[in-house]
Structure formats: C-alpha cells, structure tokens
C-alpha cells in the first residue's frame, strides 16, 4: 500500500517520530540536527524524505510516524508541486492534527516564486497549520525546532489531556470563528 497510514503500527514506548518531507536536503538535514540537539526526555526519531510515498520495502523497520512536516520552499515552484503531489499519499487520519506545513524563504519577498497565499490556501485545504521561518538563521532554526517538538509531543500523545486533534483545532481556529468566545 502506497498510502502512509497514521495508525498502522503500535506506538513505540517513550519515543516519538517525525517525518520531514521536502526537496531541500540541506535544510532538512540542518533542521533534523537542530531537533536532535534539543534536550528531550523522550527519544526522537527523525525520518527524511524528499517526497511521498515512502519506499515500501523498508516499511517494516519504520516506526509509527506521529507528525509529518511538509517543508515548502517559497522560492521554488518545484518544491510546492512536489508537496502537492505527496499529500495524496497520506492517510486522511493524519490530517486530524498530525500534519503541519513549514514555509521557508518568505523573508525574501523579491525572490519568491510561490505566493504566500498559495501556501496558506494549501494548508487550509488540508486543515493543517503553517509555520513561517527562515532556516538559514541558526537561532530561528532552534526556535522552529522547539516549536515542532512541542507539536510532536502532543501528536505522539505525550501530553496528557491534549490530543493532536484538539490541539490542531486550536491552531486552526480561523478567521470568523469564535471558539474562544463564551
């Protein structure tokens, strides 16, 4: 089966797994390293892929994936269409809070080849949040890594009382909706 299943496997004890999908290998690598450098009381597994589906032959050694991060490089149309194509191979259950988009390069407005709105729209289409960041800058990379880890923790069920679904609903509370108004 080429579709990546959200609940296909048992969770692993005391660990969480994040999958980074994107075409820019350097960014992926750097981000992965930064994530691993963060001190955690649980084991973090990171999987990198340039697109989905993942190769089926290694499926048996892959742990259950708790969070998929789609890295969209705003400077490359290819990166965007690649993500668009990959999204089809994701189990619908992932979109209940276990997917997030990471838009990089929005800070170079003059070199942008994808509209900011296009990314926002894509994320909205798939009911998932977008984080904006510039990964070249180490400090921002660290801050982003921490944000992703917080989400990962929740997605992997390590935060009691908060499910991935309810968390993503908080993140999504979109324009015109008044969920926090009594």
């Amino acid at each position, binding site marked *: 089966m080429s579709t990546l299943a959200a609940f296909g496997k048992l969770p692993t004890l005391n660990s969480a797994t994040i999958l980074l999908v994107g075409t820019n290998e350097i960014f992926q690598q750097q981000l992965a390293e930064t994530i691993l450098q963060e001190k955690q009381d649980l084991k973090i597994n990171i999987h990198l892929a340039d697109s989905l589906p993942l190769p089926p032959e290694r499926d048996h050694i892959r742990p259950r994936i708790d969070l998929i991060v789609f890295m969209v490089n705003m400077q490359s149309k290819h990166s965007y269409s690649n993500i668009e194509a990959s999204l089809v191979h994701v189990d619908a259950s992932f979109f209940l809070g276990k997917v997030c988009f990471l838009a990089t390069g929005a800070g170079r*407005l*003059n070199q942008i080849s994808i509209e*900011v709105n296009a990314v926002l729209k894509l994320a909205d289409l798939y009911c998932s*949040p977008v984080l*904006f960041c*510039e990964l070249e800058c180490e400090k921002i990379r660290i801050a982003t890594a921490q944000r992703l880890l917080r989400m990962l923790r929740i997605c992997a069920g390590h935060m009691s009382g908060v499910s991935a679904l309810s968390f993503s609903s908080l993140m999504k509370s*979109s324009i015109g909706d008044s969920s*926090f108004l009594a």
Partner: protein
Amino acid sequence: MKKGVIAKTPKQALTRSCSKQTDLSAWKASALQMTGRRNEQKLSKDKQQTTSENADPKQDSLEEALSYLKKAKERTPLKNEVLQKHLVTVEKIAQEKGLAPEELDFLLNIALSGKFAEVVSTRLLKNLVPTSAITADSVTSAVSWLCVGKCSRTTQMLFLKWLIAMFDFIEQKEQVNALYGFFFSLLQDEKLFPFACHVLYLITRKKNVKPFRVRKLLDLQAKMGAEPPLQALLLLYKNFSPEMVSITLPTKTKIQFKNSENPWKMAISNIKRRLCGAPPASQPSLINTACPQTRKRKWNNKLVLPACSVQSSCSAVSQRTHHIDLIVHSDAFPVEQLQTFPQLLENIHCLELPSRIGSVLANPLLLHYVNCVSDDSVYRRMYYWMGQTLREECPWHKFENQPFELEFKDFLRKIFEAECFLQEGFSSCEEFLYRSLPFWDGYSCRSQVLQLVTWIPLSTFSEMKSYLFKPLAQLFFTSSLYFKCSVFESLREMLLNWLNWHLMQTDTTTKLNADLLNTTLSGLVSSVADLIHFVGWLSTVALSLENNSAFLMHFILDFYEIVSDVYLKYNLPLVVMPPAGVFYTALLSMDSVCLDHLCYIMHRYRANLISAKQNLQAKKTVLQFKFSSQTCQEYNQYITAMVGCLWTSNVFQKDFHHQGIHMDPEVLEKTRVKGYRKSFNIVYHPALTGYAMLFLQEAQPEDKTPNFQLIQGRRWEWYLEYLYSQELRGLKLFIESSIHRASQRSQTQTSK
C-alpha cells in the same frame, strides 16, 4: 507641434549647461579646498601618531576621479579606460564611505546633465550614497536638469526613486516644497507618474492643495482609473482640505506605494555601521565633519538630527526670500540647538521640526513638542517615515536584514519608548504589526514586538482578531512557557492601556457629549470584553499545555487582578469572571501565593459587583451595564466552591458549577483519604498545610508529629490570625469580606 517644443529646448539647454559648468567649477574649487584641509588635518594627526601612512589614498583618487569627470569631453566613449577606472573609484568610495554633500551634488549634476552615456548616468545615480545630508540646492539643480530634458526617461525615473529613498537626508524641505509645481507636472508622464505621486505625497503641505490641482488629479483618476499612488495622494489632499475633494476614497489602503526597491539601502546601512562600529582611532575624518560631539548617538543615523539644517537654511534662504518671511512668519529656533528643557520652554512657539522626522523619536524634548502641536502633518510625516522604515528593515520580512537585527531591535525599542511618552500607539506601527505578525517566527526581536503590541489602540475586535490574535495564538500554542508568559504580560499591558485611555476620555468629556460617549462606550466595552474572553481562552489552554505551571498561573492571575477591578478602578461597566479552567486550577493549587492572589481577586470581584448592584438600584448609572445575571450566577458558584473548599468543607457536595469539583462519595472513598471532606480547608489545603504545620510547631514545640485535628475552636481563630500574619493579605480580605459573618455560626460546626 510637439517636435517644435523639443527642438527648442536644446538651444536653451546649452546656455544653461554652460552656466552650470561655471557653477560646478566654482563649487569644485571649494570642495577641493575642503578635502585638502581634511587631508591636512589627517596628515598632522598621522604625524603625531608617528605613523608613516600617506594621506588617505582613497580620498585622493576620488578627487582625481571627480576632476576627471569634470574635464572629460562630452560623450566620452563608454569603453574609455580612464573613464572606467574613475567610475570604479567613485563606485567603490561611494559604497564604502559614502559621499559628502558637495561631492554628491557634483555627481548628481554630472549624471543628470547627460554628459556621458546613459549607462554612466545610471551608474553614478546608483552610487549617490550620502554620508550625512543632501542639500536642497542639489535637488533644485537636479530638477533644473530635468526641465531641460537632457537625460532619458529612465534616468529621470531613477532620479525620482533616489529622491524618494533619500528623502530623509534632504535638508531645507521648504526649498524642495517650492518645486512642488514642477513635480506636479511630472504626473502627466505615464512612466514617471507613480514616482511623481510618491514624491508629491512626501512633500505636500496644506498650502499646496489647490482646486486646480485637485481638478487635475481627478482628471487623471478619470483617465487612469483608481491607481493606488494616485488614491494615496488624493486621500492626502482630502485630509488637508476635505471640502475640495468631494469624492469618497477608501480610507484603509494598506500599502499605497509599491515598495520601490532601494538599491542605496545596503550601502547606507553599511556606512552607518562603519561610522559607529569601528574604533574611533581608525575613523576617517568623515565623522568629524558630520557631527563632532554626538558620536555616541550617531550610530543610528536616522534617529539623529541633521547637523546643520535650519541654520544654513536661515542664512541662505533668508536673503532670497526675506519678503516671504514677512508674510509668513518670523524666525524659527534651530532644533539642533535645542539641548535643555528650559530652552524648550522658551522657544516652543517658534520651533520647527527637523527635516529628519525620525530624530524626534530619540529626542525627549522634541517629543514634548510633538505632544503639544496639533499639526496633522507631523503625524503624517511620522506615519510615512516609520511605516517605510519598519517595512524596509524588518528582519523577518527581508532576510537580508538578519544581520542588522540588533539595530532593528533598538529602533523598535525607541518607538516603544516614544509611544509610552505620548501615551498612544503610532498607526504605522499598528499596521506593521498586523502585516508582519502572521510571518513572524516568534523569535526575532521578541520582547520588542510584544512591547509594541501593548500600544495597539482599541479597535473593533474582529479586525484585531484576524490580524493580531490569530497569528499570536498560533505562536503562543507552539512556543515555550516563557513566551506564553510574555504574551500574557503584553496583553495585560494592552488592557491597561485601553482602560487608561478610557479613563482619560471620560475625564475630559463634559456632560454635553456624554450621549456621544455612551454610544462609543458600548463598542469599547464589547472590545474589552472580547479581549478578556480571548485571554481566558488562552489561559485555559496554556494551563493544560504547561501542566498547570505556577509560574504561568502567576501571569494569568496578574491579568485577572485588573479584570476584577475594571468597574471600580477604571469606571468601565463590565464584569467578566475568569473561566473555570483558571479558577479551579488556582483554587486547588499547591502554591499559597497563587491561592492568596485568587482570594484577593475574588474579593475585588465582590466589591465591584456589590457596587454595580447598588448603583443599578440607585439608577446612578446612565450607562448600560454589561454584566448579566449569568455573571452573578457564575460568581456565586465560584464563591460557593471557594467557601466550600476553604471553610465549610463541603465543596464536593455543594459545588454546582458544571466544570466544578462536585464528586460522588464513592469516587472519593476510593482515594482512601481519611476525612477527605476537609482536605481543602485552610488547614489541609496543600497550599496552606505548610502553615498549619508551622503553626502547630510554634504552639506545641514538644509534639513531634503535628496533630492537625487540634486546630479547631479557639485555636482555629488563632490559626487564622497566624495566617494573616504571614502576609496572606488576599486570604484575609477574602475571609473577612465573604466568610466572616458566617464564620461565627459555622465555626463550631466546621472545625469538628
């Protein structure tokens, strides 16, 4: 026909350029003198230092290049090596050090005179980087070159862009304003049109707004449609003279001028950095000519007063225009001489704001002045300049700004301080936040951004929600505990600023416009209520994400301390209770500080509600009070729970709040806690049991295992006194106001 006009101009241009040439050489002589003097100074300095360095070789080569450009024949072929060499020199020095006003003036004339090929003109224009200032005379002569049409349309366009980018560096703005008609006529050119609009937007004053110009602009609009730059200009005209511009215009155009790229920006900031970053010993003489004693403040060029703006304008302009002076007004006090507060007091009636409006931000005296003037143009200039700077320099909008984050931080800090002083936010800053928060990484300039948020003025909540609170909430949920606390702190400040603003409003309104106030008040009340609900929502979520951290709770309760007193302290008819997620977490906290704080807040709620009820009964308030019976009910439920917890030990049966801690005895039995009923009263409550232990130790030092059951009857009263003596003031106020009357009766029962 048209040909005829153009055919006419070259001849007349010839005469002009001749006279200009003489001007240039005259100027050149003085400029050379100056640089020569500078080099001498440098030389003598070098000698003192007994170094064998030659006079600055770069300065020499710049001189050479300039004199070459002056003497070179017109239309020297592009490939001429000497020309190329000198151009490279100019380029290099301009980019590294910047150009003095005289050098700039010279090169500007060369570029616009069309003496060399267009490529050369473009290159020169792109390197016109000022170190300190640009004189208005330079602009005048540049404009005269445009009149004679010696340079191509593209060069003219580039010049206008340059003018826009350098606007802040230009001195004697009055003189530039005198060229208004000329810039206005450029509107007819389709290519130059947007830039001409932009220039006009920058220089327009009330006196420039004339019916014939309005007619012209309306004609243009009819012809070209609603172009944003034109709309901006019309809007400005309308601001000045609403009676002249009768058409309706969209009032909230966010970006009026396309972010014209600014090829000079990098060079300017590089030079700025060099001037302030390098140790003084290795400084070139540049800084001495620019501003000798204020080097410390010099580092952010934009925020520093131009060295000699008004003074020179006085001497130069006054001769020519002394007739006008008589008509308009008398002499102004030069701002750069303004050093002390008494000076301000003496001259406040004749101050003129500096050409660089940004320098106001860093100058407390000028802020005083701005605070007093009612002139709209000050705010408009500030608005424009600040909006532009924020857009241009924001590190997460333009990645190339990353290395200058520190500088940007300092800029934001200055804005914030000015806002604190003026007690209001700048609208350009608000727009900047709205526009940039969705892309903020939550890291760059964090504390400065959150500080600026506090001065966002109150507006309709739906707008704030989509632009401000939504992006903020997203960051909030995924960021650290400290970030969350800072957000609460910042929202608390925001609420305070709104409430203070409201207090000021009511103070200054008379009875006459009380009705008017009433209508705006309901808007205010609902916005404030929305903000409070928003924070309540954030608090509930944050507490569950952060495992009920006491640190977080501290910030949340700080917020509610203000909320509880909104009616009595800030005269706003509104009472909003905290959500159950906050109330119960605080009530059952292990932290006595937190419990005490909650007690204080509930005490304040009680005072506010009682006073509101009394006023309502006495019909003293004409204002519609925004608190429903639901609020009262909620308060009563909370109070029941609190008293049931701390005093009567029946919370598990008596708490009827749907999110409360009502619990079946069977569940409680399972905990195998003996006397579970009492486990949250003032003796056993986890936040207070430590006090009980210390109290018992003091009372009966010989008993090794404290027996809490002893605290009853008279000891209960003593224990209360003991608690009060431990600075639990909130608890004291709460017990005395909400419990005490009942206590005499129930004391014997409860302490059994």
